[in-house]
């Protein structure tokens, strides 16, 4: 098993390198020059040259790449060219903000969809299934910004139950209950947008499991169907869910872009959108690299976890 884990880690490293080259290359291919964002038209050639030299933009591309990677490995992510703020500092403020929002939402979505998926799967074709499955279709079809606006209008404005803007009330920054009340609406939106696909997934694998022999055996012994569902089927359904959980790791960074923008949540999403608008290329590169690395790391983690839970897996790779 350790051999398998070691092999998977070794495979992930060249992937990360390739990802970083792609991120860097894409920005180099962008239709405008990074230096344009820092200069104004009335600067002379000499001034522009000086600015280029200061940021190392006069060096050939491969040298710039090495400087960049060297910086990232040593925790120095560079500076925004629009606000001149340190990117690692900005990220260290914003990543926790996003995690506060995404993690609980994802957890709730996971728990609810396992329950709903199991029920729908077990009662395939019956009313409960039709309702759950129908709602999932509905959920997939609804854009999350629209859902956010509807919730803001009803619960934030008309019923006036929750605040609608940002993370804190101005002047009430330290209060936990204040933070919590700001969390409710965006969390609901995120939960509802994460859920439908998970429900679908659990439902279809439940249906698959229910036609397996062991279920028939249990039924033959006269075990109650709820018992079968939660004692036997659940375990087998949860196995592939590990894969999904691992693969959703990058969501911690970019999973809430739309929701954050609508609610004015000061997380990575709004930061990323702003950077793209202002062509703040060091930030774009950093976030692209971060989220694509998380995809690889997430895959790696889920593979490893899976191989621990189900030892048959490691045999398959060899």
């Amino acid at each position, binding site marked *: 098993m350790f051999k398998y884990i070691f092999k998977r880690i070794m495979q992930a490293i060249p992937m990360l390198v390739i990802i970083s080259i792609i991120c860097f290359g894409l920005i180099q291919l962008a*239709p*405008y020059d990074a230096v*344009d*964002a820092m*200069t*104004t*038209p*009335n600067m*002379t050639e000499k*001034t522009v040259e*000086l600015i280029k030299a200061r940021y190392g933009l006069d060096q050939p591309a491969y040298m710039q790449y090495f400087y960049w990677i060297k910086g990232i490995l040593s925790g120095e992510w560079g500076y925004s060219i*629009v*606000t*001149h*703020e340190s990117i690692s500092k*900005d990220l260290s403020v*914003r990543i926790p903000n996003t995690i506060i929002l995404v993690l609980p939402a994802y957890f*709730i979505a996971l*728990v609810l969809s396992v*329950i709903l998926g199991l029920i729908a799967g077990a009662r395939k074709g019956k009313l409960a299934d039709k309702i759950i499955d129908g709602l999932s279709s509905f959920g997939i079809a609804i854009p999350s910004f629209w859902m956010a606006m509807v919730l*803001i*209008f009803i619960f934030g*404005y008309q019923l*006036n*139950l*929750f*605040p*609608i*803007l*940002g*993370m*804190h*009330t*101005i*002047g009430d920054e330290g209060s936990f*209950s*204040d933070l*919590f*009340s*700001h969390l*409710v609406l965006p969390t609901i939106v995120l939960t509802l947008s994460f859920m439908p696909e998970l429900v679908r997934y659990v439902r279809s694998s439940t249906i698959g499991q229910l036609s397996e022999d062991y279920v028939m055996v249990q039924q033959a012994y006269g075990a*109650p169907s*709820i*018992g079968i*569902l*939660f*004692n036997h089927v659940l375990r087998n359904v949860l196995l592939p869910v590990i894969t999904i959980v691992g693969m959703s790791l990058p969501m911690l960074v970019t999973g809430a872009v739309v929701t954050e*923008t*609508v*609610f*004015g949540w*000061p*997380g990575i999403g*709004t*930061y990323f*959108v*702003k950077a*793209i*608008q202002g*062509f703040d290329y060091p930030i774009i590169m950093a976030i692209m690299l971060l989220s694509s690395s998380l995809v690889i790391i997430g895959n790696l983690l889920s593979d490893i976890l899976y191989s621990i839970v189900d030892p048959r897996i490691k045999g398959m790779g060899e």
Partner: protein
Amino acid sequence: MGRKNVNILIVLLVSFFLLLAGCSSKPQENADSNKSDGAKTPDTFIYGIDGDPGNAVNVISTGDRYGLMEIKTIYSPLYMYNGKDNVEYFLAESITPSEDFLTYTAKLRKDVKWHDGEPFTADDVVFTYEQMLKEENGGWARSQLIFNNQPVKVEKVDDYTVKFTLPEVSMGAFEALGNIFIMPKHVYEGETNIANSPKNATPVGTGPYKFKEYKAGESVTFEANQDYFLGAPKIAKVVYRIIMDANTATMALQKGEINAFAIQPSDAAKFKDSKNVSLKPYDEGRVGYLAFNLSSKAVQSKEVRQAIAYSLNRDEINTASYVSSDYYVNAYSILPEKATYYTDNVEKFKTDTKKSKELLASAGASDLKLKLGFTANNPIQQKQAAVIQQNLQAAGITVELVGMDGTALSQKMQSVHTDFDMYLGGYIMGIDPDTFNSLFVTDSTANYMHYSNPKVDELFNQGRVEKDDSKREAIYEEIQQIIIEDAAFYPLVTNKRILAIDSRIKGIEDAGLVPVYTFEDMSQLSY
């Protein structure tokens, strides 16, 4: 065993909903208590903005709207020039031109202190203008301090008198010398790179409010400067709150989470009958336009451009984008109505599809296909572009809409390119017509149309040094007529900015609504 699992799940679920329910009651109490506090004496003014002004501002290189709003809150200029008879003095008590109009002498206030307690003197003024003139600093106002390739000379006469010496007479100088915010010499002295200085994160000014805190992506907070030379501000705290989504902002404003926001005309109806929020549309002197990219071959013929102008319908375009005439007036000249020597005695290109077709035929341009560049996420420009497309369709011209990101569009405009033949834009310039020369003079910095007419160049040069008022007026009227006749620039609209503001806020008249900064003097606002 099975039962147990189900029970655990049910318990989990129930506790989760209880938790949610429990939490929902708390914020309600909070909101109520906030409200009752608010009804007594709110001490905070929260202004929603749809951009991030950033942590680092300085008076030299900060040039975007929200950065400048932050600057205006913290710093003061010598004076603000809002028109010939409308000069608002701040750090200067007066500024007087000499008889030959070559020197301007500014008398400074003696009672001004920087936010860190240091006294303000003429040294600060001289230092600021020198930094603005240094090319490597990339100062936004540098070009307006250069007269015929010669910089203005700034000298200290005594601690409270500064003399500006022009290299040659320029009638726009009075305006050009104003509107520049003064920076503290004792803070920035010896700084080689002002644009990226770490000192920008903790600005020290002389303005009505002191910088308190910047929260990335969230807000900028200011607190009242009790020593403000025009009197302590009445509201203790001002917050610029960053909200990227206009719908959320509109709702937050209706609800009272923020106290002011500049809304889109299409949202104005929501506030028509509102008791809590009142609308203050005000003129920013902005001219919105359709301009031609003259590096593109298809539109290099004047006849083709005039044909396009004849097929456009200004009223239709403006009603579609600005909803009601409360929020716009049709524009005909390159100058906004507030500018000195504005005239609407120019060719208005009244919609005439027949004439348009004739012109196209005589120019030999049949089956014309044009590309129109505009900012894709700007709701106003989306509508303008759609109506323009319709208008031109009627004249037999096919328009392809090229929507792009604002940054990409402005990068394109700054270089010679042929990606699109016309584009939508707008500018807020000064009051004196001379400040508009950079848009139209051959090879000038902001001449994105790549327009070149030697007659216009010559007239702009004459107008700048002409001392006689009526002669000057004639020169600028001719300029307006020639540029419009050339049809490279089709003015669409002078639109208003609609500030939706909490009805409890008083003193908006005294604070003064001005272009870009919103308030001329925020210290006058009160609840």
